[in-house]
C-alpha cells in the first residue's frame, strides 16, 4: 500500500512515452482531482442560490477575458491597456448584430469575437516598433479612441443610452434563466481555458514566450516577430470579444460605461494577481478581483451592528484596498496566486514531515 497525502498527485512518476510526459494530468490521482472539481462546478446550481450563481457566471465571463489578456501580456509580453475596449467591440458587435440585423445570438457571438480580434490586431500594429511602456501608451490610445466611438457612433451603438438586448435562447431554453446561462458561460470559458492551455504547450505558445523573453533571439531562430505579435493581439482580442458578447447577454444592456479604462486596468490587475503567463492564474485572478468588492460589502454588513460607520468606510476604501493588494502581490509574490497555490501544494507534499 502506498501512503501518500491525497493532494500530492505528481510525484514518483516515470514515463515511458513522450505523450505521457507532455500530458496535463500525468497521473490518475490528478485526473480524479480535476474530475471532482468539474463535478463541483456542474453541481453548483443545486448547491448555491440564484445570486451566487449569477456571480459565478460573471466570474466566468471575466475569467475568459483575463485568459485572453494573459495570452497577450503574460505569454507574448505585449502590454495592453485597451483590453476592455476590445471587449466592448465584441459586446457592441453582438448587440448591434442581434438587435439591428436580427441575427441569431449564436452566430453573432463568434462574429463579435472576430470583430474584436480584427480591431485588436489593427491596434496591435504599433507593436512592430514599440515595446513596454511605449506600447502601453499606444494601446491606451486604442482605449480612448474606442471609448469615443462607443458614445459617438450612435446609429450602431445607441450612444450613451446603449443597446438593449432580448435574452437569447438555446433551443427551448432561454438564457434569461440563470442556470442555463451559467452552463453556457461555463462551457465557453472552459473551452477557452483548455484552448489556451493547449496553445501554451505547442508551437505558437512557445513562440509567444520566446518573444516575451528575448525577441531578437526568437527572430534568429525563425520566429516572425511581427506576425506573432499580431497573432497574439488577434487571439487576445478574440477572447475579449467573446467575453464582451457574453457580458452583453448577461446584463442584456450594452453601454459605454461597461468598457472604460477602469475595466482595462482591472483586467491587468487580474492577470498580475493571478500570475502572468499562467492560464489558470488568470482564472484565479478574475475570481479574486470580481469577488473582492462583494466580500468587502458582506464584511461591512456583518460589522454593521458592531461598527455602524464601517459600511461607508469600507466602500470608500475599496479602491485603496484593491491597490494595496496589487502592491503586496508585486512585492511578495510577483508570480501571483498561481504560484501561491503551488507553494501551498509543495508544502503539503511533505506534510506532516516537512522539515
Amino acid at each position, binding site marked *: 500500500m502506498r501512503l501518500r497525502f491525497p493532494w500530492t498527485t505528481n510525484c514518483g512518476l516515470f514515463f515511458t512515452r513522450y505523450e505521457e510526459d507532455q500530458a496535463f494530468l500525468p497521473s490518475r490521482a490528478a485526473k480524479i482531482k480535476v474530475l471532482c472539481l468539474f463535478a463541483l462546478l456542474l453541481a453548483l446550481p443545486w448547491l448555491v442560490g440564484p445570486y451566487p450563481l449569477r456571480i459565478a457566471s460573471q466570474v466566468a465571463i471575466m475569467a475568459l477575458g483575463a485568459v485572453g489578456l494573459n495570452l497577450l501580456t503574460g505569454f507574448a509580453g505585449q502590454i495592453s491597456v485597451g483590453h476592455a475596449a476590445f471587449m466592448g467591440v465584441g459586446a457592441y458587435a453582438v448587440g448591434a448584430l442581434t438587435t439591428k440585423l436580427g441575427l441569431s445570438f449564436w452566430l453573432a457571438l463568434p462574429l463579435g469575437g472576430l470583430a474584436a480580434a480584427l480591431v485588436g490586431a489593427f491596434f496591435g500594429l504599433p507593436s512592430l516598433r514599440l515595446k513596454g511602456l511605449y506600447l502601453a501608451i499606444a494601446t491606451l490610445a486604442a482605449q480612448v479612441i474606442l471609448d469615443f466611438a462607443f458614445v459617438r457612433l450612435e446609429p450602431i451603438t445607441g450612444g450613451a443610452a446603449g443597446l438593449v438586448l432580448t435574452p437569447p435562447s438555446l433551443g427551448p431554453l432561454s438564457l434569461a434563466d440563470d442556470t442555463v446561462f451559467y452552463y453556457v458561460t461555463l462551457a465557453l470559458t472552459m473551452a477557452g481555458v483548455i484552448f489556451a492551455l493547449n*496553445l501554451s504547450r505547442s508551437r505558437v*505558445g512557445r513562440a509567444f514566450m*520566446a518573444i516575451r*523573453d528575448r525577441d*531578437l533571439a526568437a*527572430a534568429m*531562430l525563425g520566429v516572425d516577430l511581427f506576425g506573432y505579435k499580431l497573432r497574439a493581439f488577434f487571439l487576445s482580442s478574440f477572447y475579449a470579444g467573446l467575453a464582451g458578447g457574453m457580458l452583453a447577454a448577461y446584463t442584456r444592456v450594452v453601454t459605454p460605461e461597461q468598457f472604460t479604462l477602469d475595466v482595462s486596468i482591472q483586467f491587468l490587475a487580474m492577470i498580475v494577481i493571478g500570475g502572468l503567463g499562467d492560464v489558470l492564474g488568470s482564472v484565479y485572478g478574475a475570481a479574486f478581483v470580481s469577488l473582492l468588492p462583494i466580500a468587502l460589502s458582506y464584511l461591512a454588513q456583518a460589522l454593521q451592528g458592531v461598527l455602524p460607520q464601517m459600511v461607508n468606510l469600507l466602500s470608500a476604501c475599496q479602491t485603496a484596498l484593491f491597490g494595496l493588494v496589487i502592491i503586496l502581490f508585486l512585492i511578495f509574490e510577483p508570480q501571483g496566486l498561481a504560484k501561491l497555490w503551488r507553494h501551498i501544494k509543495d508544502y503539503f507534499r511533505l506534510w506532516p514531515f516537512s522539515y
Partner: protein
Amino acid sequence: MQQELLVVENLSLHFGGVAALTNIDLTVRKGEILAIIGPNGAGKTSFLNCISGLYRPSGGRIFFEGRDITRLSPHRRAALGIARTFQNIELFKHMTVLDNIMLGRHVHLRSGILAGGIYWGLAQKEEVRHRRRVEEIIDFLEIEFIRNRVVGSLSYGLQKRVELARALALEPKLLLLDEPMAGMNVEEKEDMARFILDIAEEWGVTLVLIEHDMGVVMDLSDRVAVFDFGRKIAEGLPEEIKQNPRVVEAYLGGQLAEEA
C-alpha cells in the same frame, strides 16, 4: 573543389560616421570550420550580425547557397538554415531547457493557433515527432539531467550548452558561434571543442566561429580569417596565419613585433 556555402562580397557596415566593417570579402565552403579572430572591436560580431540579419549592411552583398540574402529578414534566413549562438547568452530565461530547444525547431513545425489550441491530433503528433529529435540533441550534448530545469537557474557553462542545443535543433546548414568558449574553464572548453568537431563531422554542419583562445582556434579550424579595425587583414590555413607578420602586428602591436 569544395562548394561555396556562404559568399560575402564587399560588405560594409557604418553606424553614423563610424565604420564597423569595411569592404569585407569572405567565402565559407561547405563542411569547413572557419574561425574569425581579431582584437576587441575588430568587427567580428558585427560581421556575424550581418550574416544572421540582425544588422542591415550599408554596402555589399551576402549570398547563401547562391541566393542573395542581403535584404532578407532574420526569421527567413533561419528558415534557409542559418543558426547562431550569442556572445552573451540569449536564452529564453523563463522557459525550460526542453522548451528552449523545442523552440529551436520552430521552422520545422507547422501547427498554427487552431491546431495548437485543439492540440489532440495534429499538434500532439507533431510535438512527439519533434520531441524525439530534440532528445537526440539532448543526448548528444549530454544535458539529459537538466531537461526540465528552467534555464535561468542554470550555470553559465550549461547555459552555453543549452544555447548550442537550441541552435542545433534548427538543423542548420551554417552555424555561427560567437565565442562559444568565453568564460569557460579548461574542462568545459575541451567538452565544447569536442562537440564542435562532432557537429562538423557527424552532422555535416558548416561552422563559422569567433574565438579568442588561440590554442582552440589552431586546433579546431580548417581556415582562419583575421579582422582588425573592420577590415579583413588575413585569411588562410592556421599555420599560415601564425606566421603572418600583419597578424602578429595586430595582436602584439607594431613595436613588439619588430623586437620579436
